[in-house]
């Protein structure tokens, strides 16, 4: 079991980063369907840098740590994903400013802040066929489980299941934001790469949590 909130935060970020690096090809191929195929490459190159600079990242508080990660992401990931993911990490950091220990409610607050940041940055909303369509329902599920008193492992597993189902459900949506939106109705029939990435990240996180 992780001993402090900074360590837990670092564990989560490390898991996300490793997923981005490992799944480069899969994410890229998803983006090739109605996008331009760079999603996997962009995420991988950025999170690669996070991993390279891993030991040097300031760990004073979870917030400071997340802010450092956010700067690398926003500054070094290209494409739409750089600003979107960077804003998400930045807002999550701001949501728990000065806190040393994070509660379940803090985690939900961070996710909600990240979601608001993505909506603002991308002028996007639920139903536009973006990563929001997996991230929002997964956050809802996580919150519901935590309120119901479920333990972290179970709550994470539940969030991952919901994220996967939601990502799958983006298949029938028509994209209204991002590059896929140019294709109009032809965007229907394949899932949104960003939404799938959210599901894959949560699945891996849930799997690794039990081993941690």
């Amino acid at each position, binding site marked *: 079991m992780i001993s402090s909130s900074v360590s837990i935060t670092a564990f989560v970020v490390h898991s996300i980063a490793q997923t981005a690096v490992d799944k480069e090809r899969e994410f890229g191929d998803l983006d090739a369907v109605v996008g331009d195929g*760079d999603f996997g490459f962009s995420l991988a*190159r950025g999170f690669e840098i996070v991993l390279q600079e891993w030991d040097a990242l300031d760990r004073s508080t979870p917030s400071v740590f997340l802010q450092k990660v956010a700067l690398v992401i926003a500054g070094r990931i290209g494409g739409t994903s*750089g*600003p979107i993911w960077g804003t998400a990490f930045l807002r999550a950091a701001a949501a728990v400013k000065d806190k040393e220990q994070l509660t379940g409610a803090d985690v939900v607050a961070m996710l909600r802040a990240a979601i608001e940041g993505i909506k603002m940055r991308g002028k996007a909303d639920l139903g536009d066929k973006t990563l929001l369509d997996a991230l929002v329902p997964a956050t809802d599920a996580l919150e519901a489980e935590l309120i119901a008193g479920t333990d972290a492992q179970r709550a994470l597993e539940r969030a991952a299941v919901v994220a996967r189902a939601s990502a799958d459900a983006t298949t029938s949506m028509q994209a209204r934001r991002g590059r896929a939106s140019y*294709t109009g109705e032809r965007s229907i029939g394949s899932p949104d790469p960003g939404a799938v990435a959210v599901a894959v990240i949560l699945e891996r996180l849930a799997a690794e949590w039990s081993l941690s």
Partner: protein
Amino acid sequence: MKKFVNDPKQYVPEMLKGIALANPDKLRYVPEYNLIMRADGPNPNKVSIIQGSGSGHEPAHVMTVGRGMLDAACPGDVFAAPPMDYVYETTKLMASPKGVLLLVNNYTGDRMAFEMAQEMSAAEGINVKTLFIDDDVAVQDSTYTVGRRGVAGNFFVMKAVGAASEAGADLDELIRIGEKVDSVTRTMGIALTSCTPPAKGSPLFEIGDDEIEVGVGIHGEPGRRRAKLTTADEMTDELLDAVVGDLPYRAGDRVALMINGLGGTPISELYILYGRAHEQLRQRGIEVGRSYVGEYCTSLDMAGASLTLVKLDDEIERLLEAPAEIAARVF
């Protein structure tokens, strides 16, 4: 993948190094930010013009840096908008007392990176404005989308503001000129094949031996529709109809006509398309005042072409006529 590549991750840096080595007196390469800048820049007596976008569209934009066009280009990886940091650092490096103009093709990722970088640079007291280019008629604008895409027509915006800035125009004047050129520029493209991004190592999309993608994007995004391969004349006519139909034209109007190769199509074929388009315009009473045939904004190795029309007036024609000196050169 049949390409001249070493490590796909080094595709863009190695290309940029090559550009700098081939133009030692004219260009400087700053590896930290994928930056190609004029060796003599920034020039305090002119507005600095910077364009960024994903790579894979060469000669746009890293090979169009030079006197009379861009002061710097700041590319991202293949098909990925440059990271905000790169844009921000490039803006700071190129800051001129007369200001900085950022040229951006209208894509979500590019808009975000440039808007964020603009905010940060403005906060540091740099006078910076951004101009979005959106000449592609293939995808219709609607409240649900992010507007039209910027494609090969960006050449004309770059060329016009480049010439004007060289002549001393200030930032507001450049914005006026750039917006005017963008507002009379229309493009549509057709893909015969997919392109193969080096990191992916396989074609971006599947397309049958007898199929074409009408209205394709320069990142291999799908366009209006899949259609059957037909004759050069019929394909030209389809592009021309779409482009001419998107602006009110009158007999006697003068235009610049560009046939742009998408990377894998030989220039001989481009001239076949050009000849047809020129003649069809003549039949419509539209006069070609300036012609452009070759590669201006590509999509890696994609076979295909786009057709651009710019409605000319005296001011635009004069700016397009002005000389320029860039890496994409014959001699």
